[in-house]
């Protein structure tokens, strides 16, 4: 599955103080916070489940996964539900976002070579970077974020 075409629109969300871009076509839903059922013994970044219209959906703490630290709950917090293929299975996953900004089309600065130095988070999950209103936006490599490891 090709997640990115060159000028696809992205949903820009804030996670642990940084901005991230998610291709719009994988986004299914943006929800207000829902009660979360914790999953004991699961890996810490996917230790929750939520009910999205009758479907049981795992909740991922993106910040924790990519090394920025756990998400905080604010009045702006939302769950962003995306659909993507994990190990050959179409899966719905909810991401914790501190804030959902907007859908935007923006220019990618360094498409391939994202510098490892100067990044707060783990670089292997960043596919490219862009710029929005003077701030950097990191384009997530979702396939890698959700790859089974």
């Amino acid at each position: 599955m090709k997640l990115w075409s060159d000028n696809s629109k992205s949903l820009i969300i804030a996670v642990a103080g940084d901005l991230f871009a998610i291709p719009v076509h994988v986004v299914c839903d943006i929800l207000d916070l829902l009660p979360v059922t914790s999953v004991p013994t699961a890996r810490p970044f996917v230790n929750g489940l939520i009910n999205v219209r009758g479907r049981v959906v795992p909740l991922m703490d993106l910040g924790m996964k990519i090394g920025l630290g756990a998400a905080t709950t604010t009045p702006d917090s939302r769950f962003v539900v995306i659909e993507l293929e994990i190990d050959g299975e179409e899966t719905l996953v909810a991401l914790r976002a501190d804030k959902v900004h907007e859908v935007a089309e923006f220019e990618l600065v360094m498409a391939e070579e994202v510098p490892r130095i100067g990044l707060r988070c783990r670089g292997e999950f960043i596919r490219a970077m862009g710029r929005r209103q003077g701030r950097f936006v990191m384009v997530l490599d979702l396939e890698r974020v959700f790859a089974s490891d």
Partner: protein
Amino acid sequence: MNILSGDPSEIFRQEADELFVQLETALLDLERAPGDKETIASAFRALHTIKGSGAMFGFEALAKFTHHVETVFDRVRNGDVPVTPGLIGVTLIARDHMRLLIDAPHQVDAAAGPAILADLDRVVRGQGEELPRKPVAPPVRVVAPAPAPVPPPAAPGYRIRFVLPANAFVLGTNPASMIREMLEMGSGKVRCDASEVPGLDGLDPERCYLRWEIELITSHAVEAIEDVFLFIRHETQLTIEPLPPAPTPEEAMVAVESVGSERAESAESTKPVVAPVVAEPVARAPVSAPASSGKPAPEGVVKVNADRINGLMNQVGELVIVQSRLKQIAHSGEEELSILSLRAVVEEMGRLVSELRETTKGIRMVPIGSLFGRFRRVVRDLSKELGKQVRLETRGEETELDKTMVESLNDPLVHLIRNAMDHGIEHAEARRLAGKEEEGVLLLTATHVGGQVLIAVDDDGKGLNLDRIRAKAEERGLLAYGAEISDADLAQLIFHPGFSTAQSVTGLSGRGVGMDVVKKSIDALRGNVEVSSQPGAGCRVVLRLPLTLAIIDGLLLKVGEERYIVPLSNVDAIVELADAALEHPGEEGNRFLFIRDELVPFLHLRDLFAVPGSPPPHEKVVIVVVGKRRVGLVVDQILGDHQTVIKSLSRLHADVKSFSGATILGDGRVALILEIDHLIEFGQHREERLRDALDPARKRGSYETLVR
């Protein structure tokens, strides 16, 4: 009827599936009882219908091929050709070929069909030569593409008289096209007898008053003519006589009144004689699972008992009534009254929904016999391949199971049967030496136990070689050297994924090719598998499966802030922790319960799930059971039963072993379903460890490696 809306050939495929089962069953029955007329007739009928419907749905090649086999079986039915193992062997291969002609007509090797027919011819002829006392039947001339391969009587044709039923026109029968069809087989004269036609005033225009007589010059067989009357054979008075010149003794007159008259027809013929095996033709089809295995059966159509549909309809009717009552309550002004009647409706609704659930579940249920039936062929072919004599016995074929489950059980069961026959059951020689019957017995049993289905595969072979299993497990690091372990647990190790990676294990230790694959597929069905063995006397593998995949009865528990579900079928008892806990001077405190004179280990779910805070005063223990193994789960609170719609967990939680799925509760929150098997395993190993701790002399090792 939406029977016409689908792909019509799909309907034929479904029908053919059943016919193939019928044919195969009949053939395998004949192997045991070669003279049984009913069985022969059943095989013939199956072939006949495959041919007829096949032609109707455009499977020309199939119809043509089947026609030849049918011809042979017609002669078997008439006693001209005896049933021999050779004949059965070739016919089974022919059956596989027919199946292929339906499933994958483009992959069929053009030479395969004629070759099978040649084999068939040889078997039939070989038989004829060996039984000179019977009138030698003319050899079946099998020329693949030729339309007339049947033993033609010397006669140049037939005199055909037929009287159609009076309501033939109403039924849509067109005599003109039937006559034309017959004339196309050759040439002939048609006479119509109109003597019965009444005067105009008495004439019913929809009634058939006419009779026909045809003198047909043709090289076709009687059957070809009978086929013209295929759909109205029961009602038609049909006489077919050969034309004078050379009447043959056998086919001098065939009066066909109904399909059911096989008995009468064959009454005169000599009894089929079982002859020694004529060199069995080499199997062309690979000897293994039936062609269907691996390929899931079409999901589209399920046959449902009409009673169940009626039940469903009634319940839906009731539901509609309840709904209108609900509406009434909603619109009535009186608040006080509403609450009361609302409660009554809720109760009613609860009953209806659970009934509906049962009925709907029933619709998806099919007897497991259909699956067991397939294995007869597997066992037959395998015993030939392995050179062992094995008899398959089945019990509890009527046991019902979810249709999708039945399909998914095929492969694991084939695997288990293969294993039992390959490694369990010995060769005749070895069995004789061991004082056993030469023929090994493989027993498949299905029973309902509680909310589960139990399927057992028993063999009376040599059993598991526990010493070899121990050695292998130690070598592979699954078991510490010299560790104390019960025979039952040791046997269970053959399902461990690390156990059976090497092929060499098979030959040496007896069992273990891909047993982990079996376990994996049974796990996926939320079942479990256990093996037990008696050295020298046999081995038993038991599969325990839930009745259905979609909905279970669950017990809702509370631990900390979260609620969990335990499948009710696994719950054995619920006790107060304080009453039951046994003071035990172990390091970890009291970890055993005394339940019905038995020590049961228990687990604090609070500890296991790392729930913060201290437990409430009156903790409960839910004793869960799988097979004979039990474990207590300490929970904060029992909330009651809950009809649980199972939702599977995503790949992101594939590593979480404690939960088998999740469900959505009444308030919309998600609750996890506990994976009992894993918890029991965990509890049992903890118990072992504790016992070791209490009795250091026993502590020579542990197999903690099993717990991951």
